[in-house]
């Protein structure tokens, strides 16, 4: 079987993405900072910790219910900083534009970038513009990098989770993926689901301000909740059990997933955060989250144990138990 080319699934954030990172990127680029493979690199300069991250956005279509590629590019990068316990401060912004793109569309997207950045208290401080021939990219792609100051008192890496911790999420899952899929040609279906795309920093700050001991946070984007918890279980070498009847999944998202043969747990989110904290801090953390507009529906969805190490399981509604595995990644290309 030929394995000489990149497949769409290599970009899905699942096991093929991981394989590419581990077999192609890491061996050639390895250093201690990169190796942790967290959402941001943590750099210490003059005693102050900084989080540094980058992300590219290729979502199709570039305007979707609840947002557009510009809002997504700001939120996605801010959120990767926030989940490391960093206050996002500065962003870079690079455009790859297709010849023929409507200026009105570009204007709308840049306005959306400005508004989102303003709301989140970050500044766009550097940028770049390239144009390629018609047909060589679809509308536009955006790359952003972000820099923030770590304010969390402890390191929030994926390897930091301990048995006995609780798993909390701030609201219903699967909305971003379903909203984007509903607009795709060949699938297009009527739904009132809108993307949950939102900056997480205000919510994360409220969580950190409680003084509770937060072990780790993750924004479950590509690969959804499944990929995020599988990553954490593996990095921390712990067992994680989720409860199906506790998972917040809207009726429309569930219906769309049934129709398309997808698992809501693997659908990307853009305004959700998984919080791992000590069980005794749960009430405090939940109260702080519920006081925030994007944390109103926060709830505990699972717990961490010693066994089985590295494995995530789901207690099903009817009382069975099954494994949650890292998704392969081919189901939802170009969702963010």
């Amino acid at each position, binding site marked *: *079987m030929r*394995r000489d*080319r990149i497949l*769409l699934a290599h970009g899905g954030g699942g096991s093929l993405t991981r394989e590419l990172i581990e077999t192609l990127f890491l061996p050639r680029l390895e250093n201690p900072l990169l190796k942790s493979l967290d959402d941001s690199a943590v750099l210490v300069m003059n005693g102050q910790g900084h989080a540094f991250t980058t992300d590219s956005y290729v979502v199709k279509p570039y305007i979707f219910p609840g947002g557009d590629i510009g809002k997504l590019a700001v939120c996605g990068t801010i959120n990767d900083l926030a989940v490391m316990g960093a206050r996002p401060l500065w962003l870079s912004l690079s455009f790859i534009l297709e010849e023929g793109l409507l200026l009105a569309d570009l204007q709308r997207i840049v306005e959306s970038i400005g508004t989102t950045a303003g709301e989140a208290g970050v500044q766009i401080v550097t940028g770049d513009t390239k144009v390629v021939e018609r047909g060589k990219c679809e509308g536009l792609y955006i790359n952003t990098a972000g820099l923030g100051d770590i304010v969390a008192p402890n390191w929030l890496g994926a390897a930091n989770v301990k048995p006995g911790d609780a798993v909390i999420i701030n609201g219903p899952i699967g909305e971003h993926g379903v909203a984007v899929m509903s607009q795709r040609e060949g699938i297009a279906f009527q739904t009132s689901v809108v993307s949950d795309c939102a900056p997480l920093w205000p919510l994360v700050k409220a969580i950190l301000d409680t003084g509770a001991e937060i072990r780790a946070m993750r924004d479950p984007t590509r690969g959804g909740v499944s990929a995020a918890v599988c990553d954490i279980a593996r990095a921390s070498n712990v067992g994680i059990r989720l409860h199906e009847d506790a998972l917040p999944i809207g009726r429309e998202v569930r219906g769309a997933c049934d129709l398309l043969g997808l698992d809501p747990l693997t659908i990307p989110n853009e305004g959700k955060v998984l919080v791992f904290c000590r069980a005794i801090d749960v009430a405090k953390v939940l109260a702080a989250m519920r006081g925030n507009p994007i944390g109103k529906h926060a709830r505990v969805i699972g717990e961490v144990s010693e066994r089985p190490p590295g494995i995530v399981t789901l207690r099903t509604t*009817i*009382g069975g138990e099954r494994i949650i595995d890292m998704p392969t990644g081919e189901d939802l290309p170009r969702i963010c």
Partner: protein
Amino acid sequence: MKAMVQNIGELSHRVGHDVKFMEVCGTHTMVAFRSGLRQLLPDSVRLVSGPGCPVCVTDPSYLDAAIELCGRPNVIIATFGDLVRVPGTDTSLERERAAGANVRIVYSPSDALLLARECPSKNVVFLGVGFETTAPTIAWAIWRAARDGVQNFSVLCAHKTMPRAMDTLLHDKELRIDGFLCPGHVSVITGANIYRFICERYRIPCVVSGFEAWDVLKSIEMLLRQLAEGRAEVENEYSRSVNEFGNAAAQRLMDEIFEPCDAVWRGIGIIPGSGLAIREKYARFDAAKALSVQFREAHVNPLCRCGSVLRGAASPLDCRLFGRTCSPTHPIGPCMVSSEGVCAAYYKYEGVAA
């Protein structure tokens, strides 16, 4: 739910021996694994999966033919998503797409027809793989293409029908099936009566089941009750969607476009009369004829046990490739590719045996 599990326990006790029930629908396979319901069954009740995943039962020579087609200039392959990752002899549609072939994923045959209208200079070939559930939608697309005189749309047809396959499995001495969970989606089209011969000829109970976990548990309970009371009948647990006679309009449409043919099932072999071929009247929409497709014998990994898994004769855990060289990331057999495949379900939901 607890009461149902308790009933199943009591009934299996009354039956007094180990029983093996087979489901023959990929969606049932998924439900059984995703809900973890197999763990709620007593040890004496085994639920096995039969040839219910359409991608899995497709002969590899068909995939090779599709792959050959996608390499021709002026051809666009339109297909359901599951098929693109299934390996043929040397490669898969997914890998050929990465190398430049024109392979599009569609969610219905009507979208493939639409694609043909949008690309008049290309031949759009839809890969017609599936059971009675999808056959009417393909018949509908062919019928409309004929009505509107669309010249550049055709179907590479490998459709199959379920009752003959169930009949064949009952002749397999290795298997000894005590009851069938009949596929709900197929039965919406065909009606529940098509399974009556199984009860009459083989004295084996059948229950048409819905797709929630409790539907499947309820159906298992109904099968056990039939065994305990010495009955063998077709019962309908999915009466909210299925009746005795099925969807007459869909059946008429299928009959207009298709005729029965012998079909090759991966793992089972040729089952006479178990396939659907496009009738001569619509031959110009039959890609095999219109584009002169040659089917050649395919070469698959001899260690792959998908064939036995599909008959319910082996568990994925019996396969030497399972979880070692064959995984959802790098599948070797179709049962590891399809979301409805038994190997993928074992791998994802039961974990690789330590």
